[in-house]
């Protein structure tokens, strides 16, 4: 449900940047979303189609790049892949790890005209 708020934020950034840089329309936008970010991608796409209406991003295509979950295992002293917050370290089976990547919510790039 908060995907709507996220899309409002995205569209606001897109329209502001487009206007400030002297363009009129957004053709495409690239997002980076971490695998452990609190976001349902289908809901995000659905919300984007609604929120973009009647803005400079009305026909903008949405391109979503998923970034993997990464964590630093304190017991192993190295970086490992994590798919969920409750996953054990794939090397030692422990839970003493700290997330280092995978919760990104970022607009990386847009194509304008």
């Amino acid at each position, binding site marked *: 449900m908060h995907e709507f708020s996220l899309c409002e*934020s995205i569209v606001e950034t897109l329209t502001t940047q487009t206007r400030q840089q002297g363009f009129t329309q957004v053709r495409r936008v690239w997002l980076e979303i971490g695998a452990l970010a609190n976001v349902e991608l289908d809901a995000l796409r659905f919300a984007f189609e609604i929120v973009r209406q009647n803005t400079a991003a009305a026909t903008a*295509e949405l391109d*979503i790049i998923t970034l993997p979950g990464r964590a630093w295992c304190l017991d192993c002293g190295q970086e490992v892949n994590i798919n969920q*917050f409750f996953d054990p370290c794939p090397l030692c089976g422990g839970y003493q790890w700290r997330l280092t990547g995978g919760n990104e919510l970022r*607009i990386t*790039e847009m194509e304008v*005209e």
Partner: protein
Amino acid sequence: MCVTCGCGESEPVTHSCDYPHDDHPHEHGHSHAHSGARLIRLERDILAKNAEFAANNRRLFAERGILVLNLVSSPGSGKTTLLAQTVRALRDEFPVAVIGGDQQTANDAERILAAGAPAVQINTGKGCHLDAHGVGHALERLPLPEGGVLFIENVGNLVCPADFDLGEAHKVVVLSVTEGEDKPLKYPNMFAASGLMLLNKTDLLPHVDFDVGHCLEHARRVNPDMAILRLSARTGDGMEAWLDWVRREQRAVLAQQASYLETHLATTRIRLTLRGG
């Protein structure tokens, strides 16, 4: 010509990464803009706007020595009862205020007012969470509890509020024993974002199938750093440990404020001395 890398393409080029496209990471180094178009790098957090409002709130709280706790949970975990009891216990020690978020009604704010603390309700309408901007405006309608505690009772929802920083010192997640003991695993983002978990309604444990050990194990798996306290806001059992936690955190905020002010004062004195005369 491609405006990104000047590679001389004049026809619109199909982007190297076609939709749908969210199941593998990749680079954009060789992506081409369509002709007449331009690529602009933004590298901006989607929640950047909320983060700005949250930083403003946080600055205000630090200046006034206010500990801010953002209480999150599912609907029906007993947040309002817990807050009413907390307000009654602490209101004579330092100023306390409450901002409550619900889709509709001012019922919760009325219960807090009855407990003796100023309270404002934010009705989010169709919204599923509070955001830092809304909290900033709510602060205009509330006497600020300087040197005390502001509790923010978020909308009952274990999903969306996890993402929205309100400027708080900690998120406090409330889970009651009438819910599933696997909630930390089902809603990991919220438990991962919280500094303290309160396991509430422990007086009902004899009547429900709830394995406390399992629940705590799940919670620690998701967030090994999170403090966990058990209590019953209704009977008062375990409340003192929670109140002590709040007192300790409040004191830490005051100590931080004092140290900031001392540094500031010392700097100003030195400037005055250097100015002479």
